[in-house]
């Protein structure tokens, strides 16, 4: 089992969701986050005074999947989120120790989907 965390551009969320849907991975947790990468945010100007780069709005997706779905999930996110420009975001894949479905008490691969 893997835990996939993806940080993407907010305006690419719909495309990523559609791509995940096509890959039959409908389960996802989405949150609005702030962050910056190597582009160091955007310079802002207030009353003629420049303020150094601030954090940019991003969207974070979290998906727990069984091994068979790791590659399709990464493929779907990449396909939906890529523009080729700086700032497209990143995908992190972590090992997942345990999953428990609260309603039934199922554990592991059974509980994930």
């Amino acid at each position: 089992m893997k835990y996939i965390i993806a940080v993407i551009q907010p305006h690419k969320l719909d495309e990523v969701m559609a791509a995940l849907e096509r890959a039959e991975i409908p389960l996802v947790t989405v949150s609005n986050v702030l962050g910056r990468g190597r582009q160091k945010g955007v310079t802002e100007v207030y009353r003629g005074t420049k303020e150094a780069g601030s954090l940019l709005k991003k969207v974070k997706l979290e998906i727990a999947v069984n091994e068979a779905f790791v590659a399709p999930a990464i493929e779907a996110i990449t396909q939906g989120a890529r523009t080729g420009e700086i700032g497209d975001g990143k995908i992190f894949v972590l090992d997942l120790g345990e999953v428990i479905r609260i309603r039934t008490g199922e554990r592991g691969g059974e509980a994930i989907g």
Partner: protein
Amino acid sequence: MVFQCMFAVITPALMIGAFAERMKFSAFLVFTILWATFVYDPLAHWVWGTGGWMRNLGGLDFAGGIVVHASSGVSALVLCLLLGKRVGYQKTPFRPHNLPFTVLGGALLWFGWFGFNAGSALAANDLAAKAFVTTHIATAAAGLTWALIEWQQHGKPTVLGTVTGAVAGLVAITPACGFVNPMNAIFIGMTVALICYLAIAVVKARLGYDDALDAFGVHGVGGIWGTIAVGLFAEKAVNAAGADGLFFGGAQLWPQCIMAVAAPLFAGVMTFVIYKLVDAVMCARVKEKDETIGLDLTQQSEAAYTVIE
């Protein structure tokens, strides 16, 4: 009576923006009462009261450019310097937290200002209409000019800049609105945007004082320029009770310049004295820990914004 009361309360209120997030609420209240009594009240009588020395000198201030804006703007600067900078100023970015509110506030000011300026004719007559027109047109010119300056300097005009420019226009036309013609009102609006832009973007950046809302840069500088502009552009053809400025063959510039120096000087010195007094008795600045937590929570025990996103 109520009209004059509004002038008296708005003047110390103008300063709040300068020392935002630093001053103790209780100390601020005491300061405001003392300042209104010992700075605003004498100034208003000197300029507008029968027998006031600035009025006897021939000084003109239609709706409070020197009495309200220059005096509070300069006092705001003195307070900024005495209170010191906010923790983290120039190290971490301080961004205006809500631009739609800025636009809403700017619009309310613009609208409310007609009451102050046109209302200072003290009658619903043709002079009130003239003041109304010059107020509107100078403000529009100043907002537009500021946007154009930013466009040239930074490649993009901004909402905050346009609103700031418009307020600077309102300030500068305040002493002049009942004495100048609309064409010169446009010129006053354009020049005040340029002067205030320089004061805020260049001079403030060099000197490094922390005037959060640019009360000095807009109200102080704009009020002083507007007062001097009366000495240049006033004409009796607009208001027979006024005078002719330099460009209309008159000698109005001299009393205007005396006012533009004397009033800010008086306000600045008095602010210094009142601040020192308040600071000695009740310690004006909040504790650093309280400042870091935020004044909403430490002074009032309430959060201003409970819904995010």
